[in-house]
C-alpha cells in the first residue's frame, strides 16, 4: 500500500476541531506538583531579586524532596527556603546568603551538619556549565582560573583535560542540565513569551539547559503587549512548557521595575530560621495558605504590596 503523505490532503480537510493556539496556563498547585515530580531543578534571578518564589513555595507545598538545585550565580531565599523545608539533597553552590541582611541560616545549618550535599562551585562553573548543557556540549573549558584556588581538591566535578590544539592542560566544567527550570518574569503571554525587565541574566541559558521550563509571571498580558516590544521577550514561548499567573510572585524578593524587596519580611524569615524556628515560617507562609492570594494576604495584603510597588517609583 502506498504511503499516505499528508501533503496530499487539502487543508480544509485537515482542520482541527479546536483551531485555537494552545494556552500554556496552568494553576500554581499543578505547577508545584510537576516540579515536585522532578529530580533536578534550576532557578535564575540575582541575590534577592527576581526569584521564582511562588513556584518554589508551591513545590514545597507539593512535598518536593530529595531534589538537586542548580542556582543562579548568587541567590538568597530561593535556595535557603527549599533547604529549610528539606526539599534539597544536593546544591551546586556559588553564593547563598542574604548579603547586607546576613548569612543564610538554613543553608549554613544544613552545610555545617552535613545534611546537604554541596558541590563547591562558583560563578564560571555555574554559568559555563549551564552554557555547555544549553548547547549540548560534552563540557566547557577554561584556562588558569582554578590554578591558584582550592576548588581542584574540593569540587570533584571539576576535571582536567588536554587541549588538543596546544597540548596544554586546561580545566573542564561539566554540563549542568536540569529536569525543570523555573523562572520569574514581569510579563508573559499565555503562549509562554516571557519578558524579564531586569538585567540580562541566565534565563535564556537555563531555559535551553532544561528539559522543561515553567514561567511564573506578575502579569499575564495579551499578545499585543508582547508584539509591541519583541526585543523585550527574554525567553520565547517555544521553549516554555507551562505558564503560571502569580501576581507579586517574586515576593519577598524584588521584581525588577515592578516592586521592591520586602526587607521586613526577609528579616522575619531570617530571625525565625536563625533561631531554629524555620518550621513556624513554613507553616504560616508556605503550608497553611490555601492559595497564592492567601499568602499575599498573610504578608500584608494590598496595603503592603502597594507600598512595595511605590517604593520603586518614589524617591526616598
Amino acid at each position, binding site marked *: 500500500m502506498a504511503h499516505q503523505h499528508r501533503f496530499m490532503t487539502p487543508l480544509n480537510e485537515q482542520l482541527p476541531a479546536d483551531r485555537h493556539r494552545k494556552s500554556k496556563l496552568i494553576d500554581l498547585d499543578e505547577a508545584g506538583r510537576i516540579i515536585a515530580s522532578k529530580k533536578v531543578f534550576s532557578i535564575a534571578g540575582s541575590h534577592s531579586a527576581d526569584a521564582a518564589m511562588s513556584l518554589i513555595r508551591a513545590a514545597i507545598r507539593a512535598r518536593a524532596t530529595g531534589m538537586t538545585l542548580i542556582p543562579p550565580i548568587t541567590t538568597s531565599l530561593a535556595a535557603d527556603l527549599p533547604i529549610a523545608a528539606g526539599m534539597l539533597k544536593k546544591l551546586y553552590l556559588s553564593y547563598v546568603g542574604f548579603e547586607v541582611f546576613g548569612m543564610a541560616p538554613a543553608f549554613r545549618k544544613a552545610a555545617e551538619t552535613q545534611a546537604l550535599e554541596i558541590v563547591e562551585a562558583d560563578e564560571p562553573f555555574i554559568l559555563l556549565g549551564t552554557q555547555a548543557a544549553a548547547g549540548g556540549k560534552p563540557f566547557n573549558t577554561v584556562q588558569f582560573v582554578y590554578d591558584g584556588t582550592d576548588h581542584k581538591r574540593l569540587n570533584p566535578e571539576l576535571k582536567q583535560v588536554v587541549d588538543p590544539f596546544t597540548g596544554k592542560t586546561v580545566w573542564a566544567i561539566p554540563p549542568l542540565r536540569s529536569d525543570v527550570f523555573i523562572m520569574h518574569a514581569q510579563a508573559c503571554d499565555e503562549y509562554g513569551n516571557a519578558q524579564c525587565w531586569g*538585567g540580562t541574566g541566565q534565563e535564556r541559558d537555563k531555559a535551553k539547559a532544561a528539559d522543561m521550563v515553567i514561567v511564573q509571571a506578575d502579569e499575564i498580558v495579551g499578545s499585543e503587549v508582547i508584539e509591541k516590544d519583541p526585543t523585550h521577550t527574554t525567553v520565547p514561548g517555544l521553549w516554555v512548557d507551562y505558564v503560571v499567573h502569580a501576581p507579586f510572585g517574586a515576593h519577598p524578593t524584588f521584581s525588577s521595575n515592578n516592586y521592591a524587596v520586602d526587607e521586613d519580611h526577609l528579616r522575619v524569615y531570617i530571625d525565625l530560621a536563625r533561631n531554629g524556628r524555620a518550621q513556624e515560617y513554613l507553616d504560616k507562609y508556605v503550608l497553611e495558605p490555601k492559595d497564592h492570594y492567601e499568602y499575599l494576604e498573610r504578608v500584608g495584603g494590598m496595603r503592603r504590596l502597594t507600598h512595595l510597588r511605590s517604593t520603586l517609583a518614589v524617591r526616598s
Partner: protein
Amino acid sequence: MAELAHPGTDRYSMAEFVAIVLARQAGGTGECTGGGGANQAVALAANRLAQITVRPDLWLFTGGAGVYNGKFDTLPIGTWDPRCGHGAECKIYIADVVDGGTRGERPGHSSGRMRPAGSGGFGGIQVDKYGNINMIGVGQYPKLKVRGPGTVGTIWMGSGPSNVYVEHHSKRIFVEKCDYISGPGWLQGGDSRHKLLNGRDGPEYVWSPICVLDFTEDEHRARIASVHPGYTVADVVANTGFELVVPKDVPQTTPPTDWELNVLRGQVDRNGVLRKRRMTVGL
C-alpha cells in the same frame, strides 16, 4: 565582643569615609570599569562618587543588576538592587562578565575594559598576609565549623589585579593562612603567583575600616600603607592575626573634606545608607 568602628570625629561614619577613600583611588586614566559585587554598597557609592567628580570616563558596572552606568542619587541596597538600573545605558549579559574573567587581563596590559572590579574589592571570611581570600569555610572540609557563603566571583582574583575589601577588622578575618583559597592573592608570596598565573599581578590594596594595607614589592606581604583617623598602628597590629610589615613612618589617611562629604551625601547617598552601615573592629 567587636566594637563598632568609630570615625576620627563625629562628622562622618566610617562607611562614608571608606567610600571617599575608595573614590579617590577609583579607576585610572581613560576608560575603565568600576563596580562592586556582593554586599558592596560602599564600593558602589565610591565608584558613583568618583564618576560624577574626577573620573567621568569610568563605566559604573553593577553586576547583580547587570547594567552599566546607572544614574542613581540614592544608594541602592546592593549591586543586585534593580534600582541600580535607573538611568542605565546598557544591560549586560552575565556571560559577558564571565568571558572577561576567563580571558583575563593580558599581563602588562591593564585596560580594565572587561574587568568587573574597579575600586572596591573582593571580600572573604578570611584574608591572609598575601591577600588570599576564603569564602568557602573554616574547619576540616566537608565538616566545616563555619560554612562560608560560597566562592561566587572571588574566583576572578586570579584573572588580574584587584583589591581586597573587608568591613570588619579582626583576628578572625585577618589570619596567618586561609583554611581554603577561593580567591587567589599573591598565593605563597614572592613570585609564586606570577609563576603560576603567567605574570598576572595580585591584589594592590586591602581596604579595612581602620586602615589601608598594600603589599611589599618582593615578598608581596601585607604592609600598613596608612591608618585612618582615630586609630593607631598599635590598633591595627593588635587586631590583625598575622605579622604585618610596619614601615617606620606610617601616615594617617587624609581625612574627608567637607566638599567630599557634601557631594557624597547630596548626590550619591541621599538616603543615608552609609551613615547607618555597621563596620566593626576586634573579635
